[in-house]
């Protein structure tokens, strides 16, 4: 193990030199975990996530992570993650599709218990019929758990977002879990150039004493604390407390906006904002839309792109404002439900200009050629209508 030094998040994100490496997304995850100064990792195999936690296992063996084990299933891995976070350590795990669903009961609990866990979701199709292929339908479900949700476009995003996630998650006024999502295979198994911060620099350790809830160690502070539910009485007081508790979890997500702006620049990336037509997309759909946009611009079509990096808290203000200008908004997605279109439509005044699609799912690729073709068909339809 290299001797390492602690650096501030500001230095690591904005000043540290970067070295170019040719990596797959899952390797980039492990590189992020190494630099995030993670205490504990619990793993469970599922494709396409497994390689990431294999490699994290290797860095544990080298001494970069203090504890690591393979749990018995995803629900119990997420439960043990909660136990670790309640005990006051920085924890990491990852899962995919069916594993996400198997574990689902824990995600609202992480949020409700204000645990700053970071979990990577390498999204994939959900059975049945069996598929292991890319599809991000699970993000739509995760979006309502109270967790913060980021969506990576490529291995570089995946690396950066995991580090940013810990810093944002552990702010005392936020202190919420973060799901860092990336489309399986399209990011996890894609090898490309990733710019890494120095291997011998890591984030400061987690300080459980700033937690907005009691750390379960009988010390900070001692005596008599129960986590968490109000099973005592069925009466107005219990209901009111529970309702207020849920509001507070959502309030914490609101507070995250300030830190998202500080550490991620913005929850959205905008290319050609004044364009007549805008793609709005997240994850690898944004990558495909980027290519389609360039090809259409070369043909003289006035089209731009809004890449949505943060799904929760949803960038409402940004989306509402950006949606004012274009005549047409097209939302390509890698799932059949269209959760992003749903989110955007609920924040835009004129829904008539929003086209939720094309959607590609079940492992299929979204070729830029198809996006170009579909966009042109749409424009032709509008002209003839």
């Amino acid at each position, binding site marked *: 193990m290299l001797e390492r030094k602690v650096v501030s998040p500001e230095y690591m994100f904005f000043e540290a030199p970067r070295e170019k490496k040719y990596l797959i997304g899952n390797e980039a995850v492990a590189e992020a975990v190494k630099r995030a100064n993670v205490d504990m990792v619990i793993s469970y195999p599922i494709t396409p996530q497994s390689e990431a936690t294999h490699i994290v296992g290797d860095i544990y063996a080298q001494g970069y992570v203090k504890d690591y084990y393979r749990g018995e299933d995803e629900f119990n891995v997420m439960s043990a993650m*909660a*136990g670790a976070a309640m005990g006051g350590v920085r924890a990491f795990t990852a899962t995919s599709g069916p594993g996400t669903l198997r574990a689902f009961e824990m995600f609202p609990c992480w949020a409700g218990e204000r645990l700053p866990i970071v979990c990577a979701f390498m999204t994939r199709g959900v059975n049945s019929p069996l598929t292991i292929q890319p599809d991000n339908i699970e993000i739509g479900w995760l979006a309502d758990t109270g967790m913060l949700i980021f969506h990576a476009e490529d291995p570089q995003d995946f690396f950066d977002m995991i580090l940013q996630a810990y810093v944002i998650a552990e702010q005392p006024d936020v202190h919420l879990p973060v799901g860092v999502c990336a489309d399986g295979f399209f990011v996890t198994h894609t090898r490309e150039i990733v710019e890494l911060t120095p291997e011998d620099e890591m984030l400061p350790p987690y300080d459980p004493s700033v937690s907005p809830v009691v750390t379960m160690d009988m010390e900070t502070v001692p005596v008599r604390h129960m986590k968490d539910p109000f099973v005592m009485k069925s009466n107005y007081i219990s209901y009111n407390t529970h309702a207020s508790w849920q509001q507070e979890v959502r309030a914490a997500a609101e507070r995250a906006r300030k830190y998202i702006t500080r550490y991620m620049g913005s929850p959205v990336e905008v290319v050609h904002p004044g364009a007549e037509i805008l793609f709005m997309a997240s994850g690898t759909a944004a990558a495909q839309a980027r290519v389609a946009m360039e090809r259409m611009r070369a043909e003289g079509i006035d089209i731009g792109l809004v890449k949505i990096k943060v799904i929760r808290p949803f960038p409402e203000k940004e989306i509402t404002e950006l949606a004012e200008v274009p005549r047409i908004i097209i939302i390509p997605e890698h799932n059949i439900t269209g959760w992003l279109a749903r989110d955007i439509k609920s924040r835009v005044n004129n829904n008539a200009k929003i086209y939720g699609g094309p959607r590609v799912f079940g492992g299929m690729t979204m070729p830029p050629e198809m996006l170009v073709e579909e966009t042109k068909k749409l424009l032709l339809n509008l002209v003839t209508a």
Partner: protein
Amino acid sequence: MEALKVSPGFEKILPQEYQELVEDGPYGRGLAVKDLGTFKEVIEEHPLCAGCGLGLAIRLILASLPDPGNTIIVGTTGCNSIVMPQVAIHNIHALFGNQSSVASGLKRALRLRYPDKTKDVVVIAGDGGVADIGLAPTMHSWFRRENITTIMLDNEGYSNTGGQESGMTRQGVVVNMAPVGKKFPKIPLHEIAKAAGCAYVATVTPARARRLGQMAKRAILIARDIGPTYVQIFCPCSTNYKFPPSETLKRAKETEITEYMSPEAQEFIEKIEKESQSRGGKE
């Protein structure tokens, strides 16, 4: 005891019960069941049914903790979880059945944060939580040799949800969800525990108060250094088994008292109990 101190000037501002906990609580004093009645207990009162075997069992366990100032309890859904908020020790209500995995993560985290200190993590959960919905994490915590103690409060059914059959219900018993009688025998979890790697396994009842206390204490001490431990406490449920509350202890005596220690655990216990006696300890 280092942890439980009041900030100067606030001693008399605390409500009476906290003042008593600070002045006369069991923290750091090495007390046991025989000392009950001479100190301020970490449990005030409980909202359980009259004649509930659980209430007494929990009281005895809490009085037997080797180091209540450094103990964290992990529980799960069930009658015991409505007692736990009354306990002056950190306790976690996990989801239904995942108590052993929460405890695994917690124990490991505390070991990282306090390498020079022992923090006891004790799972206290019902029979449904341990043997049915939570069987996999319970057994995997044993397979992994986690340093935690699992205590099952066995009232032979799901009492908090209205008295349904559990895996620990006896064969032939007619209860909810077993309308024609349970069709398979009580799960022999104490036998399974030995095969699964527990260094210490005991079955007991609150009708044997001191024995229960001794077993809980041994289980927690062995779990610190040697391996996982399991104590199964038979706590009959007068509400759902429909017998008079006054008969609880009589029925509780029906169960067999057993104790198993691995050779390593045996050697360890003999050593520390001898040391304790030679110091005139309170065992």
